[in-house]
Structures are given as C-alpha cells and as structure tokens.
C-alpha cells in the first residue's frame, strides 16, 4: 500500500504582490500529480521554513519578483538547515538577474527559473531531484 507522493511548498516571500507566476507553477505541479501546499503572499522566511517543516515537503519553490532574493533566499536555506531539512530541494523563480544566479546556486539553491521557463522543465527537474534524494 506504500504510495509516495511528491510534496512541494510554493511560497512567495517578501513584499511584492503578484502571485500569478507562483500559481501557474503550483497548478502545473498539481497537474503532474504532486501535492502542492500553497501559502499565499508576503511570507517571511520564518513562516516558509515552519510550513516546510510541518508539511514535511520534498521541495520548496520560492517566487520572488521584488529584487530581495539575495536577502530572502539565504535566510530560508539557513532556517531549513537549522530545522534538519537541509535535504529539501529549493528552487527559485521570478525576476532574478543573470549575475546573481551563480551565487544562489552556490548557497544551495538547486535551480533558478527565469521568465519563460516551461513548467514541464520544472516538473522534470523536481521529479529527478526527489528520485535521487530517495535513492541516496
């Protein structure tokens, strides 16, 4: 009877008020058979890490359009690690300048998706990452 579902938290940290992108991704992951926990706008890193813990998610997707990614993302990663969830696959979407991407990846973000990324790509990356994590 063992059936494993991929659980993903989709969160919008920071103060910008547009969550259309986050909703499109949430819907695509749902349509790919995943269980998507959607938390809504204006989440603090603390709220995101707490939800990730309680929901025991495999992945956290952060949608950031405000430009505050270099402040918000490291804080989320730090809190996840502090909670014993360093294994969680963190990906970032939104408006992220090209030059910031290497730094984000170096911090532990697994993928950064800019505007125009196909949702299929996000789904495939996530499936592969969770498969790898489970075999590890």
């Amino acid at each position: 009877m063992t059936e494993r579902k991929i659980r993903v938290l989709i969160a919008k940290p920071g103060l910008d008020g547009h969550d259309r992108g986050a909703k499109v991704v949430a819907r695509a992951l749902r349509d790919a058979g995943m269980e998507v926990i959607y938390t809504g706008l204006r989440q603090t890193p603390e709220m995101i890490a707490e939800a990730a813990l309680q929901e025991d998610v495999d992945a956290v997707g952060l949608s950031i359009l405000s430009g505050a990614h270099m402040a918000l993302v490291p804080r989320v990663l730090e809190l996840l690690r502090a909670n014993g969830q360093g294994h969680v696959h963190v990906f970032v979407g939104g408006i992220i300048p090209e030059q910031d991407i290497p730094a984000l990846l170096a911090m532990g973000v697994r993928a950064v998706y800019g505007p125009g990324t196909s949702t299929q790509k996000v789904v495939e990356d996530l499936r592969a990452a969770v498969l790898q994590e489970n075999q590890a």
Partner: protein
Amino acid sequence: MNTLAEEVLAGSRLALARLLTLIENGDPQGEAALDRLFPHSGRAHWIGITGSPGAGKSSLVNRLARAFRQPADGSPPRTVAIVAVDPSSPFTGGALLGDRVRMRDLSGDPGVFIRSMASRGALGGLAHTTPAVVQALDSAGFDVILIETVGAGQSEVEIARLAHTVIVVEAPGMGDDIQAIKAGILEIADILVLNKADLPGAENALRTLRAMLELGSPRGEAAAENEPPLWHPPLVTTIATQNEGIAELMSRIQAHAAYLRQSSGWQARDRSRLQNQLEDLLQAALLKRWRTSLPEGRYQQILADLQARRISPYQALHHLLDETDLPQSFQRGSSALLTS
C-alpha cells in the same frame, strides 16, 4: 523501542512531520510508530469543521485556533493541531492544498501545528489515513485537534464518525429550504454555524436553518438513566474575517465537550471511532489479501467477460469469489463479516 515514536513523544516537530508522511504513504514504519504511540492517544478534543466550499471553514479554523491559544475567559492556553484536507484530482492524483493561506496568523506559535492533507481518492470528505494522522497528533500531546474537511456537499459525512464535536458551516445563498432538509450534512451537526452573516441573504438563511433545526429531534448518546438532557444543536452566526461570533462559538464548543463528558457520549464516540477504524483497515487488508490470492490474470479475464457483456456484474462477482481459497463463510454474503 521505536526511535521515531520516542522523538515524537519528546516533542520533536520534525519527527512528528515525518511520521505523518509515513502514515499518509501507508509505510510500515509509520504503523510501527503508531503502535508505540497509541497508548498516549485518547486525550485530545477532536473537533470537525465541515461545510460547502467557500463557506469559510479555513477562516473559522484560524479564528478558533487563535481563541484556543488565547482564551477570552483567562483559562490556560490549549495547544492546537490542525489537519486540513483538500481534494486530490481524480485525474492526476495531484492536489493543491491551500488552506494555510487563511491561517497565516498562526505562524510562529510553537503551540500550533498545521498539516495539509490531500484526500487521495477517498470520497467521504477526509483521506483514508486521516484517522491515523489525528491519532498521531493526539499522541503527540496536542489538547485540541481541528479537522477541516474537503468542501463538502450532501454526503461527505465521514467526519461524523471521527470527531467528538462536528461543526457544520454554512454561508448565505447556498440553497433553498428543501436543500437544507435533505442535506445529510446538516444532520451531523453538533453545532451549526452561519458564517458570513454580514452578506445579503443572511436573514433568510438564518430563518431556514432555524426552521430546519426545529424540525429535527435532539440527539442523544446512548442515554441511560440519570443522564443529562439530550443535546440540541445550537445555531451560531459568525463573521470569521472580523472575529465576530467566535466567543459564542467557543462557548458552545466547550458546552458540547462538557455535555459529552457528563453523558456517556465521549466514551461512546471514542469506542465507535475505534471500531470504525478497525473495520476500515480490515476491509482494505482483506481486499488486498483476496486480490493477491487470485490466480494471475483471472481478474482481467472475468472483467473482460463482463465488459463484453458475456456475463452480468453479479455473475462476475461470484466467479471471482469462487476462484479464491477463502473460507466458505466469507464467499457467501461477503459483507456479513463486516457488519455482524
């Protein structure tokens, strides 16, 4: 000794979250941990919140959780776990679990634990593993467990078999009085709430619900002599977004808990819940065992005969039951085992 269970009992939220996942996935490790935890369960007040989609269940749950955390009467705060169930897509098996959006006020409070669950194909408004998940939270020591069902219509009444107290939430404009009379969901209410009471049509809805309650009869829990009078489900009006009516709803919830404890209701519900859980587990396990005992390919063959209309559904059933080596008593009247 079960490490996961020990960690849960020691208060680890990470271990608790892991355990809930194992339970949801039907993992044997989860079952083993529950075996160890079960003696610690049976203390919490299980409160179900059900009602139509959009009636305001999540907002109400949010307010109730806050009220339990900061009681208006100055009593000590109670710890609260929330299990919020949303539907899985019947086509993809995926789910969008959005109840946390309305519960952001509760963030940062170590006395609150929120878990979203997908229904995973179950039809009664909960997931098949919701009872075990709630049991785990109960064992972990939460005082109150709020169980929010899938947005429910007329037959999603599983919550009545699970909770001590069932709150049915309605909102204005959800249907006429015939809908109210036929709806099974109103029958299961221990407390009926008309939320969004500031919307147009609230007066009408209130009148309809009140009339419906008057038509109904009070509910008793195996009333014996010397027991208090039967419970009359009260009707409470609320505006959850403005925190209006929450104090009254809280006092009705406390009154229902007191009623259950004075009558034999608390125990009666606990006992019937455990019986239901056993029977559900038994059904699933017997079905699985029976399927594995069938000769390879036989099921597909009989199904094909049925789909080609060579045999009737009942003939197909008896062919299948005759194939297996189950005892005779199980083959004849296959449901008798479970209902006796």
